[in-house]
């Protein structure tokens, strides 16, 4: 049954902490809400599969820790508020001037109109193009966590974890506690980062919590006798169609370790596909080498009426994401007319307090775990940069030397970023390579022009495009 009537008050895209919080608040204050998410269950990435895991797998629920468990309340509230949550909905286009959201579901596509749109599409792991990174057996650390959370599966063979950041250590511990065979942890962080970070310590009230957590994780890992190194560089992967060994440099010497799985992590970056699609203004966050949409204190982008909440607007973490979701909802409610500004400000106060508290640790983390410039600075010409189209660093460099100055010109020349991922995996790397060759900053180089469909749609899906939404019962 199709409802092609009036506009929905708020369409929320993404059911992670920001999306859930925004939906709940909007709905609580009387707005009609449509929550679209491509995953089969609520929770986004951090709270993946939270309902099923808490219900069916108490041991694992405990193992995943308090940072995961707090998502359960949000998921329950989404259910209690009776929010129209459409699972498996692939949003593939948004038109700002008509405030239309196009999504695919069950072989058909729909065009739903909204008064306000809240994007809560989160972040993704930063791509680090090292030699051999495209072969089976190399995954992001987040991917291993997803295997644990959504599928209750753990690596079966020898695991090496590499890179830097809080998530690396957290997952290492979770895997260890699940009985995995971790043969090495190769941290690329230099101990000198701690010295550089020292000035930020006093401001980062939560810093001590982070540092203590980190210290505990390290101690636990070392206690298990795992080869835990830091200041590691020149990591590369070799094998015949599958990871067989990892090579790395430590204190001037090159080593090799046999492994079946390499889990790599160098932080997360905002997923900007939708904000780029609507042509919102973006700014370059140089401390972490990523683009993020410019937003006001409520999360509204430069495209009026469209908000970004959560890590999709800049990496602030899950708890901050919840606060940002609430703030966006309050402003949307106020703009539509459900609440007045005074009430909006009152409601916002606790969320803002929470947000500011969460943000205080960010400068410390940014200095402790800087972006992996080594990947592009020392890239091999035959390392693949564009995974979809199998384009190497050498080919991209040739394109630049042939006169291409922007990511889109490089794209026309050698077909990079023309595959289904549309630059999600290679966009930042291509721009960094151009920046290196032309001696500019990535800010000057810019980013790919993103166009619809941002996820592939079938001809038959496009042929069924209709205005309206599917009814709640259909999912």
């Amino acid at each position, binding site marked *: 049954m199709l409802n092609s009537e009036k506009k929905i008050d708020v369409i929320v895209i993404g059911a992670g902490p920001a999306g859930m919080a925004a939906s709940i608040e909007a709905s609580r204050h009387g707005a009609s809400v449509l929550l679209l998410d491509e995953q089969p269950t609520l929770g986004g990435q951090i709270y993946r599969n939270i309902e099923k895991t808490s219900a069916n797998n108490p041991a694992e629920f405990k193992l995943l820790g308090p940072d995961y468990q707090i998502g359960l309340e949000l998921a329950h509230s989404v259910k209690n508020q009776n929010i129209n949550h459409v699972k498996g909905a692939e949003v593939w286009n948004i038109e700002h001037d008509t405030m239309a959201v196009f999504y695919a579901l069950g072989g058909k596509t729909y065009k739903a109109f909204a008064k306000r749109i809240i994007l809560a599409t989160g972040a993704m792991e930063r791509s680090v193009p090292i030699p051999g990174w495209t072969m089976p057996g190399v995954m992001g650390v987040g991917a291993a966590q997803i295997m644990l959370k959504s599928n209750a599966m753990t690596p079966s063979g020898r695991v090496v974890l590499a890179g830097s950041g809080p998530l690396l250590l957290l997952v290492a511990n979770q895997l260890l506690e699940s009985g995995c065979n971790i043969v090495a942890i190769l941290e690329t962080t230099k101990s000198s980062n701690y010295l550089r970070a020292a000035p930020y310590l006093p401001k980062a009230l939560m810093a001590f919590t982070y540092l203590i957590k980190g210290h505990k994780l390290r101690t636990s890992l070392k206690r298990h006798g795992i080869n835990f190194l830091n200041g590691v560089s020149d990591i590369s992967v070799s094998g015949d169609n599958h990871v067989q060994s990892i090579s790395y440099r430590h204190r001037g010497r090159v080593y090799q370790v046999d492994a079946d799985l390499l889990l790599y992590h160098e932080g997360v970056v905002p997923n900007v596909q939708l904000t780029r699609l609507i042509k919102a203004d973006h700014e370059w966050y140089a401390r972490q080498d990523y683009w993020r949409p410019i937003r006001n204190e409520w999360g509204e982008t430069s495209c009026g009426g469209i908000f970004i909440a959560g890590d999709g607007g800049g990496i602030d973490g899950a708890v901050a994401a919840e606060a940002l979701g609430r703030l966006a909802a309050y402003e949307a409610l106020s703009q539509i007319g459900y609440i007045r500004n005074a009430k909006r400000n009152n409601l916002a106060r606790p969320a803002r307090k929470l947000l500011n508290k969460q943000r205080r640790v960010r400068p410390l983390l940014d200095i402790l775990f800087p972006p992996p410039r080594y990947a592009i600075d020392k890239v091999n010409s035959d390392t693949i940069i564009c995974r979809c189209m199998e384009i190497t660093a050498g080919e991209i460099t040739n394109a630049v030397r042939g006169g291409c100055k922007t990511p889109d010109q490089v794209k*026309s020349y050698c077909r990079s970023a023309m595959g289904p991922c549309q630059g999600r995996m290679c966009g930042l790397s291509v721009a960094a390579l151009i920046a290196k060759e032309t001696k500019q900053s990535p800010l000057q180089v810019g980013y790919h022009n993103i*166009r619809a*469909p941002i996820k592939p749609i079938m*001809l038959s899906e*496009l042929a069924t*495009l209709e205005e309206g939404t599917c009814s709640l019962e259909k999912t």
Partner: protein
Amino acid sequence: MTHGFDAIVIGAGIHGACTAMNLAERGLKVVMLDKGVGGRNSSTSNAGGVRQLWRHPAEIPLALEASKMWHNIEKIVGDDCGFRVSGQIKIAESDKGMKILEDRLKLVKGLGYTHEELIGKAELKRLVPTVSDHCVGALIVRSDGFASPFRATHAFQQQAIKNGAKLAVCAGVTGITKQSDLWKVKTAEAVYEAPIIVNCAGAWGDQIAKMIGDDAPVDPIAPMMMVTAPLKPFLKPVILSATRKLSFKQAPNGILLIGGGYRGRVNRDTGETIVNFEALKECAQTVIDLFPHLKTVQIVRTWCGIEGHTPDGIPYIGRSLVDPTAFHAFAFSSHGFQLAPLVGKLITESILDGRSHLPLEPFSIGRFQKADRSHKE
């Protein structure tokens, strides 16, 4: 350098580049001025069709000669431009469609041309085994094909530069005046001077023409393209339809390029285009009707080019009406790609020899100046 040029070419898309290439080859000092990097709006974003099939009668002699040049393109620009001889086929789905094709064949034969050929169901199925069984026949030009718009445009630009032409990018023209035999072409940064100018400014050609003093209406439109995930090779010719909007081909790397003149929205001043998915919905259904097995094929990209259309659908090519040292080659109405290797040569002949070896009167810049300005949708 802004002085000492013999000719200024405005627009470095495929037509501007080919013109500059020919002029430079004959010894002129040429500069191309482009508001972007050259070819962004039309030359590199079209479907790449190299087509003599279904041309307006005035264009047929040009298309026939241009086709021979495409078959020899590597000698002309030092790159094969991805050119494939695949044939182009216009399919009839019913008797009504066949009648349209038969009438066309009669017209073309009557003018003395034999390049278009009518085929029946058996031959159609032999050439396109996966086409839907309800299709009854087609009109074909077997020597037609397609090429890579990006590679071709780039090759013409590079050959022009190799011949000695200069290219100034991000040099949009803001004003044109004439002072004692010298054209002064103003950009944001400089004023270029030359005794000859050529207007190859595509969808903005009417604006440049106006600066020169010629009045030539252009309707800027945004034709859309869709591209799919790669498929096992199943289609050789380019497919058109006798009764519906469609232009559809499979590239050597397996992807399908789908177009047909479905229009998005365009703001010519900002260069912004917006894809119209309701129109693409119709395009998708057309593909499925003709090739039912493609239902589950995924579209991975869509885009709009910006084309200049004229009221009668054929370009402006030739000398200005107000000044014998100004020339035009623009508004190719979504089908200028195939003509590109030849048009630059014809313009060069007009400039240097006083006349081109093929008739350009039907393409006159002034043909609408006395007539009613309104044009069909």
